[in-house]
């Protein structure tokens, strides 16, 4: 396979296959990097990063809560882009990319919600409150939960894939709402603390920022590996189903 296509038309029509092959060749590296970076992150969280003065231990939940939420955004971004490309190109790989990203994104949304609740209890005194960010995240969880239920129980055909792509695109509209909700509405959920643009000296201290960045990289690598693995499984299942159908036809005609 030539690395660079001859024309834009060829570029777009071969992009799914190229992306898939690139993902497969990067899979072992991503896997090992994910394991290594996770070990480093947990060493940083448990032994290196200092305790926050006001919140104490519960603040350390930050290092898994924020990366889970970031991966949630990234995963549904993949669903959004792949769904648009599926509606345009109608090739099954784009549909597989979208549904696998939705599955792993749903997992990380669950983790963001669960870790947020376990952080909320000691700090806010409650697991849950109908705050703008929490509520919009819960809506996203339901949107993609519904998306996955339809995909799990409906017959896998082009009609369902088309419908799912539309839901995947519309559902993504909730992501900017979640992100900006803390600025648009007065909420219990804190506003951005990583970098405060108006105040150069504000934001997180260096040790906390390093730990957070390391955790963002590690959790993103875990997401990437899980997504690639699921894409590979779905593609293999599709190829096996095709082979089984061919074999069945051959056996029927031989009888």
């Amino acid at each position: 396979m030539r690395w660079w296509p001859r024309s834009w038309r060829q570029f777009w029509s071969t992009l799914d296959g190229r992306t898939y092959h690139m993902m497969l060749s990067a899979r072992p590296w991503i896997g090992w990097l994910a394991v290594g970076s996770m070990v480093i992150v947990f060493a940083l969280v448990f032994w290196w990063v200092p305790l926050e003065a006001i919140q104490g231990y519960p603040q350390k939940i930050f290092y898994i809560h924020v990366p889970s939420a970031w991966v949630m955004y990234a995963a549904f971004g993949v669903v959004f882009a792949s769904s648009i490309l599926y509606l345009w190109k109608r090739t099954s790989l784009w549909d597989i990319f979208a549904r696998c990203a939705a599955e792993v994104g749903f997992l990380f949304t669950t983790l963001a919600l669960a870790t947020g609740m376990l952080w909320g209890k000691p700090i806010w005194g409650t697991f849950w409150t109908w705050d703008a960010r929490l509520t919009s995240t819960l809506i996203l969880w339901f949107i993609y939960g519904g998306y996955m239920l339809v995909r799990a129980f409906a017959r896998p055909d082009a009609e369902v894939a088309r419908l799912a792509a539309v839901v995947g695109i519309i559902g993504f509209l909730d992501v900017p709402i979640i992100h900006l909700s803390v600025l648009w509405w007065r909420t219990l959920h804190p506003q951005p603390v990583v970098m405060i643009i108006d105040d150069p000296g504000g934001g997180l201290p260096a040790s906390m920022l390093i730990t957070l960045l390391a955790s963002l990289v590690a959790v993103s690598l875990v997401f990437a590996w899980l997504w690639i693995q699921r894409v590979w499984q779905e593609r293999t299942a599709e190829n096996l189903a095709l082979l089984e159908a061919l074999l069945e036809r051959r056996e029927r005609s031989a009888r």
Partner: protein
Amino acid sequence: MTWYLSAYAVFWAVLFGYLMGVSNRQQKLVERAEHLTRRLSESATDAKGGSRS
């Protein structure tokens, strides 16, 4: 401390649970591929036998 440890425990438990699910799917795919390979080789043998007779 309890909430902090609970959050990390939940994070790992959910992630490992999902990983187990992925691993089970992988196992099923391998079994399906092995079954298909057996069927393919049987059908090739039958076709050879048929062409000889």
